[in-house]
């Protein structure tokens, strides 16, 4: 019996010899993606992850926006936005914002680096399975691109009665968003496990 690929979305079995691994292939029945092509380089994934880590640090170190109205000036950082909810007694909402804009991106980047750097150096990473599982869970809650759009909405609403100056962190967030989306697309679960299996050979 030839190797079989089972569709993750409808359970239909496909014969592997009818599918080339270099191509993105769709399920014949439900049109879900069966597999992502094997192509991304380990080095570029590590480079992107390091880039994202630096951008995340900058995004949190500098103010996102500064607002001036009636001679008063106020600014906020990424974490400050989450603390705003907390300060007003909505701790759970603050936690949700903190989780989706700071913790999830951070864990996503760190877990990737802790798995990929040992693979690149050719050693067997510790806790690889757990890290990859955490990565898959945490990725779902990383909402940088939605946050950027939310920030845009807030700025448009404020611009009517105050002077708004975007900070360095806002631009870092835009770059971080692009970095993370590229990183997610080149480190699909299949690709990550391909790298892991190659290192074991």
């Amino acid at each position, binding site marked *: 019996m030839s190797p*079989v*690929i*089972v*569709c*993750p*979305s*409808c*359970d*239909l*079995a496909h014969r592997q010899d009818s599918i080339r691994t270099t191509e993105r292939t769709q399920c014949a*029945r*439900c*049109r*879900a993606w069966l*597999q992502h092509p094997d192509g991304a380089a380990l080095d570029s994934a590590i480079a992107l992850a390091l880039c994202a880590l630096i951008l995340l640090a900058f995004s949190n170190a500098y103010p996102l*926006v500064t*607002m001036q*109205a009636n001679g*008063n000036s*106020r*600014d*906020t950082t990424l974490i*400050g*936005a*989450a*603390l*705003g*909810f907390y300060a*007003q*007694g*909505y701790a*759970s*909402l603050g936690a*949700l*914002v903190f989780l*989706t*804009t700071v913790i999830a991106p951070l864990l996503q980047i760190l877990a990737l680096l802790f798995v990929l750097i040992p693979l690149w150096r050719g050693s067997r990473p510790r806790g690889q*399975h757990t890290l*990859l*599982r955490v990565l*898959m869970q945490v990725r*779902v809650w990383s*909402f940088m691109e*939605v*946050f950027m*759009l*939310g*920030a*845009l*909405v*807030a*700025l*448009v*609403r*404020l611009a009517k*009665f105050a002077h708004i100056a975007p900070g360095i962190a806002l631009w870092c967030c835009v770059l971080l968003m692009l970095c993370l989306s590229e990183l997610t697309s080149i480190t699909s*679960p*299949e690709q990550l*496990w391909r790298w892991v*299996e190659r290192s074991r050979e």
Partner: protein
Amino acid sequence: MNSPATGRSLGLLLCLNCRATLRDAKLPHSRCPRCESRVHQRKPHSLAITTVLVVAAAVLYVPANLLPVMTTRTFLDDEPDTIMSGVLVLLQSGSWPIAVLVFVASIVVPLLKILALAVLLFSIWRGTSRHRLQRSQLFRMVEFIGRWSMLDVYAVSLLATLVQIQSIASIIVGWGAWAFGAVVVLTLIAARTFDERLLWDTAPHE
């Protein structure tokens, strides 16, 4: 027509975490040999858990839209804003692309998600085998658009943090924002507990 060969009919199991194909898995207490995560033929109690989450989200959708998400307090008065009145404010100030964006992301998307999931759950419960491809595509759309409804929560978080000018103007968060955040989280989890393969488990329609 013979029923098509599926993972289940061939005794094969797909690990949803690492996409490994497993043979002879000893269900229901089996772990993937490659990534060590738990594997199941179908996600356990998918229908029941998803139904509970969707019902809870539908209930919370009402206060999310009726209660103010924030109140603007000036020395003159308090002005509460629901999501809809926020959209109208944006519309009046001429920024209609942003108004449309907020309307779609905050009002249309959550409603669509709740309705779509309800339709999908009902169709599985009835065991219908019609329009399976369309239903599958509907689910993938729900999965894709879900996260965008967090948009207004983020906007409120920034507004409430920035607009705190002593005695002149401040923005106070309302329970609408909380209910709204809860709707988003519940529907996101519901989309993850829903097992898409259940849509295809019925016999093909002739």
